[in-house]
């Protein structure tokens, strides 16, 4: 805003205030009796014009604030687009689900083969040692073949880990742009599964170093 404009506004403000004081005195003298419609309109006009500088100031501040918010939202939209949430929900997570299902299938298949071989070995008659040895070797070969699942599942696990890393990276990026680093997370609300797990003490398998071992349990019994 230019100096001339500020001076003009200040002069206008002073005129309005003077006019208001003069009108106020006039009203006091008349004690609000015999007030014409013209007087009332005059008061309204004076009040409005006296508020103009204030309204202009508020208007300009709000405008600046809104402009700032708009720019921030635009920036965030641009940054959020980089996170590629659609790619995570439409591709990355379904892919991980497929990989995990394949791992479960492969381990189930391998376990079934290994167990079938072991059961077969237990059933082999030991009358003829040469036949027994051949039959056992045959079953052992099947067990070796079945163990190849480990290589494939290992590769699938690697793919899952890489995907999780990508998702982690993108979530970190989102947290950074939203300045969420130091913010305490809100209290987690338990979903139906989590509530069931809590009620029925379903913790799942413990990791190394967690939980109690068999000998500690034995002492309790």
């Amino acid at each position: 805003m230019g100096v001339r404009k500020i001076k003009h506004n200040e002069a206008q403000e002073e005129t309005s205030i003077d006019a208001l004081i003069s009108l106020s005195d006039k009203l006091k003298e008349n004690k609000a009796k015999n007030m014409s419609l013209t007087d009332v309109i005059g008061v309204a006009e004076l009040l409005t014009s006296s508020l103009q500088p204030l309204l202009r100031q508020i208007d300009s501040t709000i405008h600046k604030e809104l402009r700032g918010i708009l720019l921030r939202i635009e920036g965030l939209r641009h940054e959020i687009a980089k996170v590629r949430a659609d790619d995570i929900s439409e591709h990355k997570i379904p892919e991980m689900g497929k990989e995990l299902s394949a791992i479960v299938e492969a381990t189930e298949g391998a376990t079934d083969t290994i167990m079938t071989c072991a059961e077969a070995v237990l059933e082999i008659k030991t009358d003829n040692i040469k036949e027994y040895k051949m039959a056992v070797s045959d079953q052992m070969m099947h067990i070796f073949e079945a163990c190849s699942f480990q290589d494939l599942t290992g590769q699938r696990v690697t793919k899952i880990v890489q995907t999780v890393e990508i998702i982690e990276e993108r979530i970190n990026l989102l947290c950074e742009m939203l300045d969420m680093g130091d913010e305490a997370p809100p209290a987690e609300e338990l979903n139906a599964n989590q509530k069931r797990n809590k009620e029925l003490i379903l913790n799942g398998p413990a990791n190394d170093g967690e939980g109690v071992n068999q000998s500690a349990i034995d002492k309790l019994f």
Partner: protein
Amino acid sequence: MALDVSMPILIVDDYATMIRIIRNLLKQIGFNNVDDAADGTQALERIGKKKYSLIISDWNMEPMTGYELLKQVRSSDDTARTPFIMVTAESKTENVIAAKKAGVNNYIVKPFNAQTLKGKIDAVFGE
């Protein structure tokens, strides 16, 4: 007194492979009269129709867990004293304590071997 290897045993686990493993281990020990169920609800159905001398159950199953099954078994006069062994991956102290309070006779943490299973069965039957 030697264990009665013809006693009826019920294995409860939602993983067919685990049932197969326990069945085979029991077979190696000498037990052949073995039935199975896929969760607590199915186990209760079996228990309602046949009297079992031993129940070996997993903990984490749906819809009825082994922990709920244990409490149901202990609350019925017919099965209150049936030996119950929990075989589970749940190895937190709170799980073991809760199971003991509910009346479990022994507790095996997965993975386990034949020797552990036999040891616990022997312990339950006072061998």
